[in-house]
């Protein structure tokens, strides 16, 4: 790939000279700008750390349920420390997965046509990206390490500088190794396989958690002692130092391998890496996680085709979108994780945690339902093609969203009654709360679906000032807040089972449900 000296000498054209000139042409102000960018990113990381740490402390506080009566479930055998044992490899897998998207061997599709035909050594092109990727990997590791240390402090109530250093050091090395391994895999064009490995790893960890918990339930007593020993190891410097050595032993060969592959990376691998980065950026900019799966071939799925023939066309299409598009998965995945946590962790089945779980469920469900409704809400011509007026489309969308919400909330409420976590009196109050929450969620989903085509990149690029960006973000946050607020009556009954729900809370729920009621009434 290096430039042929003969050609360069004969034509007087040296592409390396172009690169040199491009770099040396950077003025002082451009250098200052890039320094400012780093400063802004560090500042943003500190702010994010502060917010995430607060959220983490909140979650730990809720799951520990300090000061509120717990439900003593026979199945609850684990402590939160033991859960942290599973979170550690999960976090590492997530860092690795992130680096598979942000690795160095990537050239965006627009740039690829300009840069790749140049007869220069690819190492010259990729070296700055390679340095950035290693820096990003270790920075992401340090970020997670600090979060992890804060969580350990919250759980154990004690820490030492040596423990903090070894935890952060391990995560930094793991991040560095992840970045290098991701770079090597990118160069070999194995990103898809590595991503499948990450997904399988996460599933194995979840299955391992359930298996160990089940083994404890059926009386494998030796596991209890072993788990306690592992939990304690998390608070000692020694095991973390061993982990640091292990991470270093993996990171060094990965860095060597990846830097060797840098010269031989193919144009196809660079283009694929660039496409992955674009998809991630698009997903972040559009606030739509499906963006990262755009490259994957969608499987044909004929589920439910005949069943929906009994339904009106508009309802049938939305039902098929929900089933075939996998829009039920986030709510089901969250429900399963929350249920396992509530059943397996000793302090988790408490009113605070139950209210928290319901609030998150409503937000997750609202976002998923908005995805189901998105095409019908944003492309009126689809409705016209089907011969449906706007009022008919909106009624169908509201009915489907409310019906699915009712189903999920109904199953959750009955399930919590089943394990004794809720008192089923007065029944009418519970029924009203679930109905109003479902209708409120339908209103939120329809409103959110109408904004789902929003292009964040365009908004940020086109915003004349911070106020206009803030206005959009506030609108987005308001949607999520409305989703959570739909369940106000539910939370109240979970937190204060013997008290009657105040009229003010019913009024809040009714306000949330009003747009859906209006649409259903036509």
């Amino acid at each position, binding site marked *: 790939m290096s430039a042929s000296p003969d050609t360069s000498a004969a034509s007087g054209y040296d592409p390396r000279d172009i690169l040199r000139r491009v770099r040396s042409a950077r003025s002082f102000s451009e250098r200052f700008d890039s320094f400012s960018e780093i400063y802004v990113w560090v500042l943003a990381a500190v702010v994010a750390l502060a917010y995430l740490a607060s959220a983490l402390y909140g979650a730990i506080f809720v799951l520990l349920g300090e000061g509120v009566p717990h439900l003593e479930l026979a199945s609850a055998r684990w402590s939160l420390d033991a859960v942290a044992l599973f979170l550690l490899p999960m976090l590492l897998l997530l860092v690795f997965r992130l680096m598979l998207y942000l690795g160095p061997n990537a050239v965006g599709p627009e740039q690829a046509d300009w840069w790749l035909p140049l007869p220069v050594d690819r190492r010259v092109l990729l070296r700055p990206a390679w340095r950035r990727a290693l820096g990003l990997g270790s920075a992401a590791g340090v970020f997670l390490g600090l979060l992890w240390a804060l969580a350990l402090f919250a759980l154990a109530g004690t820490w030492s500088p040596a423990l903090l250093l070894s935890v952060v050091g391990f995560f930094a090395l793991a991040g560095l190794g992840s970045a290098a391994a991701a770079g090597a895999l990118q160069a070999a064009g194995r990103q898809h396989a590595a991503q499948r490995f990450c997904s399988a790893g996460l599933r194995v960890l979840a299955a391992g958690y359930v298996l160990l918990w089940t083994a404890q339930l059926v009386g494998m007593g030796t596991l209890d002692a072993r788990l306690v020993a592992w939990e304690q190891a998390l608070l000692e410097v020694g095991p973390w130092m061993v982990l640091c050595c292990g991470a270093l032993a993996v990171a060094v060969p990965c860095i060597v391998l990846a830097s060797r592959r840098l010269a031989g990376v193919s144009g196809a691998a660079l283009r694929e890496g660039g496409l992955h980065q674009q998809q991630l950026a698009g997903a972040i900019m559009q606030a739509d996680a499906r963006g990262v799966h755009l490259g994957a071939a*969608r499987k*044909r*799925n*004929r589920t439910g*085709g005949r069943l929906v*023939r009994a339904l009106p*066309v*508009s309802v*049938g*299409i939305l039902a*098929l*979108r929900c089933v*075939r*598009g996998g829009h039920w998965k986030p709510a089901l995945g969250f429900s399963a994780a929350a249920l396992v946590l509530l059943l397996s962790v000793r302090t988790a089945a408490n009113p605070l945690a139950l209210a928290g779980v319901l609030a998150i469920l409503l937000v997750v469900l609202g976002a998923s339902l908005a995805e189901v409704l998105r*095409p019908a809400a944003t*492309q*009126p*011509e*689809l409705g*016209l*093609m*089907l*011969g*449906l*007026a*706007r*009022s008919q489309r909106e009624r169908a969308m509201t009915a489907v969203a409310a019906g699915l919400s009712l189903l999920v909330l109904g199953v959750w409420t009955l399930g919590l009654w089943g394990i004794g976590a809720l008192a089923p009196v007065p029944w009418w109050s519970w029924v009203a709360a679930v109905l109003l929450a479902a209708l409120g969620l339908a209103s939120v989903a329809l409103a959110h679906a109408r904004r789902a085509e929003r292009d964040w990149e365009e908004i940020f690029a086109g915003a004349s000032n911070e106020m206009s960006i803030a206005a959009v973000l506030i609108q987005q946050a308001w949607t999520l807040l409305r989703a959570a607020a739909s369940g106000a009556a539910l939370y109240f009954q979970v937190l204060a089972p013997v008290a009657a729900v105040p009229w003010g809370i019913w009024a809040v729920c009714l306000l949330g449900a009003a747009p859906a009621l209006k649409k259903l009434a036509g």
Partner: protein
Amino acid sequence: MATESEHRTHLEAHGLVIGYPEQTICGPIDLRIGTGDGLGIIGSNGSGKSTLLATLLGRIPAQSGETAFRGLPLDEDSLDFRRTVAVQVSDGAFFEELSVAEHLEMVARGHGVPEWEAKVESELEFFELTAVADHLPGELSSGQRRKLLLAATLIRPAGLLIFDEPEQRLDLRIRQKFYERLAGLRRDMVSILAVTHDPAMLRLCLDRALLLDGDAGEYVESEDGAQWLER
């Protein structure tokens, strides 16, 4: 094509000036489509053909002038409009999870087509989509997606068909079949309004053309329009 007593105005516009908030594209334009009429809209790139269509359908507000459907202000949501007008929608308008056959099934069922199964089969066959009947829109080529949109427009009963460059990405053989079919529909008193760049479409299935080459546009016979396109 139709006798005076059968002739009924579907869509009309008076003094229509089209454009965007800070740019007028053309106008004033007067236009009328009655039962069985076939009108083409032709012109150079950027002359406002698709904008005129979108304005006629009420999707872009007119800068001035009026549009009416059967004598009343145009309302896409009115039952009469939905029953009568079939519009070939834009290229990206699909339900990602529905197969080709299911798209046609939903449109046919949505419009109450009797024996829709047979109608779906026949449209798939006509547009040579049978082999990809269970494919998702994302798996189709751009030409196949265009065929699906045209099939969805033709599978339902309609009195007025509106197309925006239907010939795009179709091979010549399918174009010919499609135009012959449109000519047959016109004999059954179906009206057609189409933006086109294809002289064959003007010659085979349209009577007149509105040539957007100046402010107000100019009505020409289909043969003159075809020659203008071929110049």
